């Protein structure tokens, strides 16, 4: 792994269209700014890993449930009736 030393406000370029800026250093917390093309998704690694693992688990469980010859059918209705909301900045 390439390791570089940077100060606050210093930046790193990955290729020519991804730019990473060190915004602030405070103890063991680093604030990082990232500029990247919009088709490049950016994730916190541990959250990405969790969601990826859950996607695979969902596929596997659905496959094994339907392979047993059972249609995937759940007993409804569910007790919860509350609505979800979406917020857009």
């Amino acid at each position, binding site marked *: 792994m390439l390791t570089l030393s940077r100060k606050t406000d210093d930046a790193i370029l990955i290729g020519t269209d991804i730019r990473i800026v060190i915004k602030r250093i405070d103890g063991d917390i680093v604030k990082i700014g990232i500029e990247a093309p919009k088709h490049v998704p950016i*994730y916190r690694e541990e959250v*990405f890993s969790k969601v990826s693992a859950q*996607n695979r688990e969902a596929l596997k469980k659905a496959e094994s449930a339907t392979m047993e010859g059972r249609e995937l059918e*759940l007993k*409804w209705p*569910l007790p*919860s009736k509350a609505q*979800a909301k979406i917020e*857009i900045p």
Partner: protein
Amino acid sequence: MATMSLEPEIHSAPHSGENRPIRLPVGMMGLPEATEFELLSSEARQPIMWLRSLGPKRLSFPVVEPGPLVGDYVLELSDADAEFLEIKSADDNPLVLTVLTVKSLNPQRVTVNLVGPIIINRRTLIGKQVVLANYERYSVEHVLIEEPGKTSPPQC
């Protein structure tokens, strides 16, 4: 920040049979190869729908719209995701799907992933599995249904 309620109905989805596929340009997280999907739903199987990839290797995700099923679910999109999805205001009313994990059918134990919902622009049919900006409030395994387990008879 705009807030809106999702309609608690499940007929609003773009159904299979329409010619245009749903495009997830970066794929599902961890599974980037499949980028074109169809959404299969039927009255009989409500509210489960299947988000199934087109192409040689089919991936079929069971999904539900969380609106009527999950209490107090507030989705905050990052600026980057809102821009990617071309969702500018609450009027854009995107389709929200959450992936089901069927832990077991008997007893029934089913969870939904509230951290990484799939948001689809109904106009462009371009979508993305996002990580919510407020992901820390939610679980990837939010319990949707849990039946008490059947206790096995004591062994002699």
